[in-house]
């Protein structure tokens, strides 16, 4: 039997090959067949998640809620010291210096990344802004969102912090961070579906010692992860409860 692995579409383009290396490492370690399928759209991936296509997913916190509570997935690990944080950025020459400077009609460049969009909108609340009084334009990637800021087509842009930091030096030098979230406890996690549940103990053991051998360490580096940390059911439920409080 071949299992199916997918990755939340918000991974950095530089790490695409890393996920293929990870898939090869997983197959050799667990001695099973795994097919990796990557997406550039959250919506398309979510459709396939609902169609029960996957057995193993590196999921963003928003999708983790559906995977765990509706589809019976279990979290086995999370990347060490890599919380998901959101940045609201402006053009470096913008007159906006705090969220409270933003006004009704503000043009927002966002993506279909659900966590980042939700957190970005929450950070606008202190200026009395919400989806009813701002102009939201969804872009296909953070790079396209950044370009909109730079050419003056948007007033603010929402970015996953990691993705913002991986934008080119040239792009970042022409932008300024207005505000960044400091949540700390919301993060991506590796989730295993019911069909693959029997492999959880072996998978968890392999993941938690992955950084100890040269090959595993190299794979982690290519994915932009230093090491994995264990994640139990209650930690996962706590994170999902927290996400639930943020969704209206």
């Amino acid at each position, binding site marked *: 039997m071949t299992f199916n692995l997918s990755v939340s579409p918000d991974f950095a383009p530089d790490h695409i090959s890393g996920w293929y290396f990870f898939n090869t490492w997983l197959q050799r370690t667990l001695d099973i067949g795994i097919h990796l399928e990557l997406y550039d759209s959250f919506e398309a991936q979510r459709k396939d998640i609902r169609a029960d296509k996957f057995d193993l997913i590196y999921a963003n916190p928003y999708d983790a809620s559906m995977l765990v509570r509706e589809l019976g997935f279990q979290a086995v690990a999370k990347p060490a010291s890599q919380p998901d944080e959101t940045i609201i950025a402006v053009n470096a020459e913008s007159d906006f210096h705090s969220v409270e400077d933003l006004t009704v009609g503000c043009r927002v460049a966002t993506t279909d990344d659900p966590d980042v969009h939700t957190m970005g909108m929450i*950070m606008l*609340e202190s200026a*009395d802004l919400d989806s009813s009084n701002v102009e939201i334009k969804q872009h296909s990637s953070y790079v396209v969102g950044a370009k909109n800021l730079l050419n003056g087509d948007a007033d603010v842009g929402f970015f996953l912090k990691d993705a913002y930091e991986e934008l080119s030096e040239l792009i970042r030098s022409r932008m300024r961070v207005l505000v960044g*979230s*400091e949540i*700390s406890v919301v993060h991506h996690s590796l989730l295993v579906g019911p069909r693959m549940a029997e492999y959880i103990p072996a998978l968890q053991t392999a993941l938690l010692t992955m950084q100890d051998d040269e090959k595993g360490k190299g794979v982690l580096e290519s994915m932009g992860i230093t090491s994995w940390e264990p994640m139990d059911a209650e930690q996962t439920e*706590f994170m999902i409860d*927290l996400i*639930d*409080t943020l969704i209206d």
Partner: protein
Amino acid sequence: MSEQDTGEMRTVEIAYFDGTKRTAAIVDREVPYPDGKLIVSRTDPQGVITHANQAFIDMSGYCESELIGAKHYILRHPDMPAVAFKDLWDTIGRGEKWNGYVKNLCKDGSYYWVKATVIPNIRNGQLVGYTSVRRKPSRRKIEESEVLYKTLLAEE
């Protein structure tokens, strides 16, 4: 800091719904809510704090060991009407999410405003506690809440 803050100090006896009371020094000084932070806490079903994140510790002025094991009402400011908390408990008691604006009391008697959301934590069909997440409210919402709570408090 609110434009109406005077920095004045007063001593107030705060009575809680469970019949307990405490005398607290109240200072009319607002602690600004930091941008981008979320205050997160969890309680057991009786409202006893079981988890507090760093933002909660920083804003409340209590250390973690003082918060864990304390009733969540340790944060109740005397300017908050009891009816607001009754609505909270009625709502989460029905298993629903509660949202509201709350003036919280710091350990040193100063205060901070939050937009709070509380949800019941259900595990295997059983209520095991509540998660509360607080975020930065807008100035307009704070001003509206101040007027509303003054009216409600006067009616109590």
